């Protein structure tokens, strides 16, 4: 047989890397090898990984890829890139519009997620249906329960077992473009009145029964979580009367607000902070009657295909040095005092993120029954098809 033309040539940098990879092949699967080669950057990163030991992740094979289900505009993309650089695990990000959608995917089975971001009121349902696992806290060394504000984090623990750890908390208010809408709006009553009046055709509500119906209920002073038929009927009447005046029923409201197609929208804290950061004329308001306060958690599905990577990413995100970047990117307030200590002062003083106690007091956490109540689902369908 003829010899390869490079056999006698001095070894090049890339050939050296090839040799290193062959050496490494005993411990890393071929799929891993194929997965990371072909990308110059990934190869460089890998070569670093081969030379330097990986103490944090050496114990378990993390595979080459994992998948997370989360919300739009909710992470610093650099977080996942840094995680991939440190571990060789590529992170696929799936974005969802509602907790029901996440629940539906997990109920249907084989979602393929290794980590996801459910909201407080869903966790008891996930546990009841056996869809998420009790977290192995030994694998989450970066999490410290004692630095968490339990006002926001209690729903992650059921009967003493931790099923979910917090990402951030937030509120559900509304964002209003004060450059377009001149009359100040301070309440949910004012929100719906402006939708029929000065901001006719310029107002958006969520495509989400929990917040849209809940906020309409607050106009009448009822609980955000009401499932009382008479109270729901009042909310329905209001929503249907306002529907012809709405710009859209959609939870993807940032594009329309940024284009000023919409002047006012139901809004979550993090979106409000992002809009206000880029367009200072957009204010974020908590309805004076109250509304929703929430916490988003991280949880691991029972059927996660790559649990080691799920835990590794979760532990990575629980490191305050990494978490603080997430908070700066998505603008949501933190539950962890270690993270708060690292946040820039202007974020801690931002009243969109950290409203005063008087504004927080009337807010209610969403309840599990609110999410799964069939009457509210049917109300929403009547509203949307009216």
């Amino acid at each position, binding site marked *: 047989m003829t010899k390869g033309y490079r056999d006698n040539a001095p070894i090049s940098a890339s050939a050296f890397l090839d040799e290193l990879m062959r050496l490494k092949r005993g411990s890393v699967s071929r799929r891993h090898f194929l997965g990371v080669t072909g990308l110059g950057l990934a190869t460089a990163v890998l070569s670093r990984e081969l030379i330097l030991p990986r103490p944090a992740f050496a114990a378990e094979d993390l595979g080459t890829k994992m998948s997370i289900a989360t919300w739009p505009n909710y992470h610093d993309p650099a977080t996942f890139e840094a995680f991939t650089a440190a571990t060789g695990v590529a992170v696929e990000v799936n974005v969802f519009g509602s907790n029901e959608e996440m629940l539906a995917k997990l109920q249907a089975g084989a979602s393929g997620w290794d980590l996801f971001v459910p909201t407080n009121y869903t966790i008891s349902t996930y546990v009841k249906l056996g869809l998420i696992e009790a977290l192995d806290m030994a694998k989450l060394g970066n999490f410290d329960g004692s630095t968490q504000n339990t006002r926001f984090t209690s729903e992650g623990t059921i009967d003493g077992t931790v099923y979910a750890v917090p990402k951030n908390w937030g509120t559900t208010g509304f964002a209003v473009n004060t450059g377009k809408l001149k009359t100040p709006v301070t309440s949910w009553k004012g929100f719906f009145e402006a939708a029929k009046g000065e901001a006719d055709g310029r107002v958006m509500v969520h495509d989400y029964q929990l917040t849209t119906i809940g906020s309409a209920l607050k106009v009448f002073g009822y609980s955000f979580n009401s499932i009382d038929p008479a109270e729901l009927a009042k909310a329905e009447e209001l929503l249907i009367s306002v529907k012809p005046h709405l710009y*859209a029923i959609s939870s993807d409201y940032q594009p329309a607000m940024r*284009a000023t197609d919409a002047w006012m929208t139901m809004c979550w804290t993090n979106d409000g902070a992002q809009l206000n950061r880029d367009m200072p004329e957009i204010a974020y308001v908590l309805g004076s009657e109250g509304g929703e306060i929430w916490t988003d958690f991280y949880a691991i599905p029972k059927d996660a295909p790559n649990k080691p990577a799920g835990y590794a990413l979760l532990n990575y995100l629980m490191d305050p040095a990494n978490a603080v970047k997430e908070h700066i990117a998505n603008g949501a307030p933190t539950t962890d005092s270690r993270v708060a200590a690292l946040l820039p002062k202007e974020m801690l003083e931002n009243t969109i993120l950290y409203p005063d106690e008087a504004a927080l007091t009337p807010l209610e956490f969403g309840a599990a029954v609110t999410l799964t109540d069939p009457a509210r689902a049917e109300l929403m369908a009547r509203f*949307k098809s009216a």
Partner: protein
Amino acid sequence: MAMSAAGKRRAVTGLLVAPAAAWLVVFLVLPFIAIVVFSLGERAPEGGYQPALTLAQYMNLPARAAAFWNTLVLAPIGALACLVVAYPVAYYLAVKADPRWRLLLVSLVVVPFWTSLLVRTYAWMYILGSRGIPNLLTLVGIEDVRLLNTPFAVLVGIVYGYLPLMIMPIYVSLEKLDRRLLEASADLGARPVSTFLGVTLPLSMPGVMTGVALVTILLLGEYLIPQLLGGGKVFFIGNALVDLFLQSRNWPFGSAIAVTLVLVVVVVLLGAMRLAYRVAGTRQVDLV
């Protein structure tokens, strides 16, 4: 032992049909049976399905009457709007266009399919949004025009998205047209308009009916365009289905609606075929 000629033919037919039949059984018949079974069940307390044997879901169908009505009205209107735009294009391509350019022009009709409908519909969001056409209109002094998130925007999206599906069958039927019939019509003294109405149009009816049926049937299940261009305010049966499966997780009710939708499509299809047969006076109607 040698197979009889008839046995051989049957075996060949069987082999030819087997892949398609297996495909249909696995991906159409079995899922449909599952949906029928689900539609007779009940919603579990936390959503999903729990076994039961009840017609309750079908009794509840009036709760989505508005969605059915919107769909049954907008689907034919959308198909007709497509037809109005598509027919002249198909006529030009098949009859008037220079044969040297014809292939290129016909390819251009199909080119949009190279990009996902989602991406193209998103593009329309920007064209119809306030930074698009309304912004241009303000330059000529027409203020506060709102196009996005209206039924008009949905109709524009539908015509745009489904146009090629209407053009192609009409083009094909016009292309097959025997030109000598047109000459005969002219020789016998018919003016161009009556030649078109008396000869061309009737002979292209199979293509027209195919296009209308194809677009109507696809529109009956449309979800994306009303969601993106209608701002979630235009509620089709497709949107009702998505909400029932992904939001309220009422799988049995969603299944009952799906079964009903399939029945509606079958009825529409049979109706269209009968109509096509009567209008075209021929059995050569290539419906789907």
